[in-house]
């Protein structure tokens, strides 16, 4: 009883997109992801730890990323997260989709004279 079709775009929230985008540069641990996210969005998106790991777990379940053990500087063994092939492809298609939307929006904007508010 498969109801979904391949043409339907499944939901990927901005914060999920952002996580995938950050991991595109290479594996990173949770704390690093938050810091990177915060700096990329000028502090606008900075999830609390619970929220962050919920997102990571969700993306993991969807097969878009996997945890990857790695030693770190202090004695703690932190998990690094790594994009899967599928994750990379999803990121790419999402980016294209968003880029097209952004392009369309900006194109309309330049067609019109700037409004005085």
């Amino acid at each position, binding site marked *: 009883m498969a109801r979904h079709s*391949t043409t339907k775009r499944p939901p990927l929230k901005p914060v999920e997109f952002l996580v995938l985008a950050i991991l595109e540069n290479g594996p990173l641990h949770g704390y690093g992801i938050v810091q990177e996210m915060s700096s990329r969005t000028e502090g606008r998106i900075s999830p609390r*730890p619970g929220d962050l*790991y919920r997102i990571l777990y969700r993306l993991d*379940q969807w097969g878009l990323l996997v945890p990857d053990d790695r030693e770190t500087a202090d004695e703690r063994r932190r998990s690094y997260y790594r994009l899967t092939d599928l994750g990379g492809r*999803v990121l790419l*298609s999402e980016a294209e989709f968003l880029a097209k939307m952004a392009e369309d929006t900006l194109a309309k904007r330049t067609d019109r004279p700037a409004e005085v508010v």
Partner: protein
Amino acid sequence: MTPQPARRRAARLGFSHRLLLRLYPKQFRDSYGQDLLWQLEDMRDPGRANPIGLWFRGSWDLARSALGVRADSVRNCLFRTDQRLWARVTAGNIAAPNRGPNQSNVEMNMSAQRTRLQTVFGNLRHDLSFAIRMLLKNPMFTAAAVLTLALGIGLNAAVFSAVNAMLFRPLPGVVNDGELVHLYRDWPGMSWGSNSIPHYQDIRDRVEAFDGQVLAWTFAPVSLSADGVNERIMANMVSANYFDVLGAAPILGRGFLPNEANDPGAHRVIVLGHSFWQGRFGGDPSVVGRTVTLNGQSWMVVGVAKEGFKGTMPMIDPPMYVPLMMQRELIPGYDLIVARGNNWMNVVGRLAPGVTTDLCRQHLDATVLQLRDDHPDHYDNNGISMVPQAEAGLHPMIRSAQVGMSALTMVVVAFLLMIACINVANLFLARAGERRKEMGIRLSLGAKRSRIITQLLTESLLFATIACAAGLILAYWAVGFANTLTLPMDFPVDFDLTLDRNVLLFSAALSVLTGILFGLAPALQASRPDTVTSLKGEASREPGGKHRLVRTLVVLQTALSIVLLISSGLFLRGLQSATNVDKGFDENNLLLASVDPGLQGYDRERSEVFYRELTAGLSALPGVKAVGFARMVPLTLNSSDQGVGIPGYEPGPDESMSIRYNIVTSGYFVAMGIPMLSGRPFLDMDDRDGAPVLIVNQQFVNRFWPGEDVVGRIVRTGGEEREIVGVVPTGKYFSLGEEPSAFMYLPQSQDWSYPMTAHVRTTGDPNELAVSVRREVQRLDASMPVADLRTMTNTLGVSLFPARLGGAALGIFGILGMILAAVGIYSVMAYSVSQRTHEIGIRVALGAATGAVVGMVIKKGMTMVGVGVVLGAGLALGAGNLMQGMIYGVSAIDPITFLGVPSVLCTVALLATYLPARRAASIDPMKALRAE
């Protein structure tokens, strides 16, 4: 490095977070838990912020996110979001993700959980959609089942809403009514007595448990003139703190002021009840401050009670509230404010904060001891009893009757619902027979039995839910109809039945119960077919086990409806014999009309003239045979009594020497059709100056002077020695069910009463004289209100109304039960015939006569009915014994009921089996044999 204590504290806090981590799914904990905790710990660095605040934020974060993760899992299952989906979206192949060495286990766990969730939700979705399809596929079946159940559930909801309104619902508009307690006085032989005003004041001022929060109220008839209309209404006469104690501040104007509790006669103010204000004054807010005429004097409206507030008695909606201190103006001729011996008030107290009912009882007992010291005459042999609001009902005296009647009615409608359930169970069983093949296939393909039972129960619960909705619509109508009923009586009765939360919860629980009740047996049965035979398509031929169950259900159903019918039959027979009982007077062709010159400001002399002229005027009307007046109309649940002393008679230790009495005029006995057994009626010479006299009934004689001639003997009562001048037969005075009791009559001229009711004996239909009687009163005084102008038969109808209502309801329920049972028998027989088409076809082909076939089918049906009738009659014997207290004048094994009811039911059942039998006999053997 961090200082040592801070680190230890951090560890402690970390422990509680570790506990919270248990909220997450196991896979999450395994892969992400440690990282999450570390990150939380990083944020808890002591240098950064208040660690406790951080801990709280961390805990909240964990709890919220755990819930989110759980929700994500469910969502993933429902929307099937997984890597395959993403793979499809990106139109690529799924490359197996290169996971770490210990990840495959996690993945397996995950998919197991996903499958489990998917199974539960998928099954539910599947079962529901299947159930809906089954529902739509057989619209007739659905309609029959839903209607039958809806009837049962609707009746239960409606009856429960009445019980709820009477017994369970909190008092509307009253703050914390659980703190209220009702106070009564207990005398030897009489509990739940009323209170006098001085007694009330003592309770209010002395009992610490109430801290002064005690109110008193009673009904007082008043004549109201406003906007050119005169009418007599029942006002609520209340203590000045009434609205304060109940926490029900009026919506307009004010309640009564503290100083209105003092200065008797000084405050002519009234507060209107909300619905009376709406109805009589059109909801006009400017009514506050206006003057209306009450009992011939000007009173000011100072407030309007808030909507829904109806005082402390359920189902009564007082039209207005007047201050207790105005008693002399409201009930002229009596001064009850200082009379400690006149008990006529209802008293309600509010327990002070922290006071339990036990403590309150102790305080009350202590107060009684104090009062006994202060007023030894009034408190020598009595105490105070207390009833919490939740147990008060209408009045504790009739509570057991109320509860009994409610329980009986609830049991009856529960029986009806059970019969309805059995009908539907039979329908489901029949259908289960048709679906045996389907079940057989599923079972043989490896379906679990529990799975099939779940599916069938889902279906029956869906049915029950729909039936519950339909039943509530039925109940809504029934309740709406009941609310429009008005009782022909003075009291402003307002049933105000609603389908509130209690009723809705009750109905919901009931429908789940019914769903399981009628669904379980067929489900158990259907999920256990013999796989081989059902696959071979032979299921439909005499499935022995199922048939036994169907037969049992029919027997049970017949038995239940017999119990129902016999019980209601007994009740109706009791009602009939109560109506026909000898009341001691002739209620036909008797017109009643009440007047009260006292309320119009008349003094005694003027009133005497008025009554004399009215008697003469009414007697002169064409069609009037006799006219008499009495203080009280018998059998209207009113009664007054006073103590008597009989010279030479020594009462037993617990014998009450209080005798009920009525105050009447000379024409009363003739007008009522009460014959004199000996002596004479009252005469005009028995006036104020004449020797004090009284008339007693035969029971009075039997009790004090058995077998003697008593005319001329002396009775001490009301502080006077009165001579018996006549004896009348014993009648019924208070209620039809009462035992013969001693009664006495005093002449109005010697024991003055302002309010009296004219008893007018007519030659023809008394209704035709109503207009002339009113005109006659108004000829004497145009502003005199005439109340209760109706025939004696109507008035008795009022006192019989509850019993008649109960009888009518039980009768309807009984007939409904019989119809349901008949439908049940019919459908079972019809189904059985259709299943046996093949067999009957062979019989007919082999030469069975029509009569033989009809006889065979009828015999089979009637055997079940017969067993049911015998079983039901046995149960009804038990039920009759339980009901003995509620049925008057009929034996619990009344032969008419016990023979009549089963024969009616058997006749109906015979018809219900005959129709399918006819069909069986008309079976064409060729067609029947070809059908297989």
